[in-house]
């Protein structure tokens, strides 16, 4: 089994576990570093972004309460998130995240239909990189404004309100209820309309571009902050790289740095999803490798690249 098929199998397995696991009594807490959406009834665990917006900095917990038992609870949730992030890092994005799996499925449909992926220029890619950090900053700042400046409570969970996973993932549990506009008041109307518009934009984007949402994902931004301390490593042997740029061409999020890097061994960039497609496509033995602690998870090989190429040709 090649790494692509293995990854697809893991993705499907985790998709089923995270979306339906709660029905079998599985409770993985509310600190998962992936889009296991709490709006899916019967989900096995919850995305950490909700806890981050709601409890840690949010309206339910003023800053003065950080050193109390409630602060400790929030800290425990954060510790849970941190441990999971340090343990698996970007593997959460490339191998586990249900929304990532959905994006890969949509892209697979596009490929089956014979539609080419949209190409972005490097300038466009570079310009879009900071957007996820803006989302991350907003989802931290808005709850603080609600708590301390009297911003209307209906802005609570600002990112969850506009996150495309909120209307889309509950569809797999048979709930179409979030594909609607809440006309309770002006704010709810605005936020739910924005949610519908963004969901449509992202779904169309996902169809034409691999892992389109990941470019804007604040959770990826948060995980990448702790990348340097994580157990998952992505390294490049600069001496053996032949500069073929296969890694750049195959990357679903158009990372150039792996191909361009000529000095450092660590090539884990903030946008990397650890999908390992680059290592699989690399034709030189041991040039690109993913390690977990001191063990190698996957390393590039000439034979592997040929197998992948042959596989793609036959399709």
């Amino acid at each position, binding site marked *: 089994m090649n790494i692509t098929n293995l990854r697809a199998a893991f993705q499907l397995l985790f998709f089923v576990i995270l979306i339906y696991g709660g029905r079998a009594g599985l409770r993985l807490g509310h600190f998962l570093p992936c889009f296991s959406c709490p709006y899916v009834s019967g989900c096995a665990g919850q995305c950490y972004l909700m806890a981050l917006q709601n409890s840690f900095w949010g309206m339910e917990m003023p800053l003065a309460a950080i050193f*109390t*038992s409630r602060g400790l*609870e929030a800290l425990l949730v954060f510790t849970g998130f941190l441990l999971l992030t340090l343990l698996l890092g970007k593997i959460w994005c490339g191998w586990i995240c249900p929304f990532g799996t959905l994006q890969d499925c949509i892209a697979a449909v596009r490929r089956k239909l014979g539609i080419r992926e949209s190409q972005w220029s490097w300038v466009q890619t570079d310009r879009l990189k900071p957007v996820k950090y803006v989302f991350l900053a907003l989802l931290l700042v808005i709850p603080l404004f609600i708590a301390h400046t009297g911003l209307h*409570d209906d802005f609570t969970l600002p990112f969850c309100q506009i996150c495309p996973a909120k209307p889309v993932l509950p569809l797999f549990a048979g709930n179409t209820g979030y594909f609607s506009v809440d*006309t309770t008041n002006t704010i709810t109307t605005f936020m*739910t*309309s924005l949610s519908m518009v963004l969901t449509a934009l992202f*779904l169309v*984007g996902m169809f034409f571009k691999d892992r389109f949402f990941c470019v804007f994902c604040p959770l990826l931004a948060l995980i990448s902050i702790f990348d340097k301390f994580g157990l998952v490593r992505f390294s490049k042997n600069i001496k053996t790289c032949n500069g073929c740029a296969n890694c750049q061409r195959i990357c679903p999020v158009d990372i150039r740095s792996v191909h361009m890097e000529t000095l450092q061994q660590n090539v884990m960039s903030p946008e990397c999803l650890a999908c390992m497609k680059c290592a699989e496509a690399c034709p030189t033995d041991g040039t690109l490798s993913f390690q977990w602690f001191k063990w190698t998870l996957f390393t590039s090989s000439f034979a592997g690249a040929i197998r992948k190429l042959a596989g793609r040709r036959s399709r």
Partner: protein
Amino acid sequence: MIKSGRALIFRALLCFVLFMLVLLMLMMPQSGLAVDAAMQLPYLRIVYGEEQALPDGTVLLPLEIHCENVPGNYRRVNLSVVTVGVASLPAFGPSVQQTKPLVYRSISVIRTGDKWTIQLCTGLPRSFAVRVQAQSAASGKTIYLTAETNCFIFGRKRGAKAEFKADALPPAWFSGLDMSIDPPFYYWPQTETPFQVTVRLRARVLPKTALTVFDGSFPPATYLTDSAGRIAYVPPDDPKLNRLSETAAKQVFLVSAYKEGNDLFVATRTLRLHRNRLSHFQSDMGMALFGATATITGGTVIWARRRRRRA
């Protein structure tokens, strides 16, 4: 012949209109005199104070007891026995049924000046049934006053234990009217959600008893209980409440009175209603917006790709 025919039709129409008017009046909630009478009734009522979340995760909910329209000096009303019943429910929800009878335990009333307050404090997510009783006897007449409410407190203290260790109150303690609601323990009482109110006196249902709803956003309305002592009530959508936050709540008071011999029984139930969470969800609008955006975006992308390919 034609003239008389027209007159006949006119009379028939007139009768029909009159009949419809009468029907409409009968169907409308009784107002006017009944409401005025309800407003003049002596009554106790529970008014929710501002909930306080303490740093350790405990939540404190003060409940004020207001006593109004009691003849004579209202301080003569015996408010010494105020009790709180703790509902032993595993969870809140519309489907949760209360199978065991509630066990009421006494709780002290804090009196500061003219103010009477109960303080409910818990570190757990709990629901409480609160029942306040008082009596006033003057010139051979006894007034039995009851105020009830069901409150929901979301305590979040780590390692918190159940409260209220006092002994259960004896059945003899219960006096006055009961005004129970169904569903009783849904944690999110909200507008536009129907519920039933049953009025009882010593476990006996009271048919054809007036029940007045005092909602600050609407004029008071009086309804009559059916043969089973029940009324079905749907709190109307409240635009004022909708403009507030999702967690904001308004207090609605249900007042019912019953006279038996020289005794007057008055019961009040306080409802703390939130705005409805789901009734304003417009799926047609959402799907239309989603579809329109997807079509425009998809079309634009395809057009741009084709243009680039041609270039």
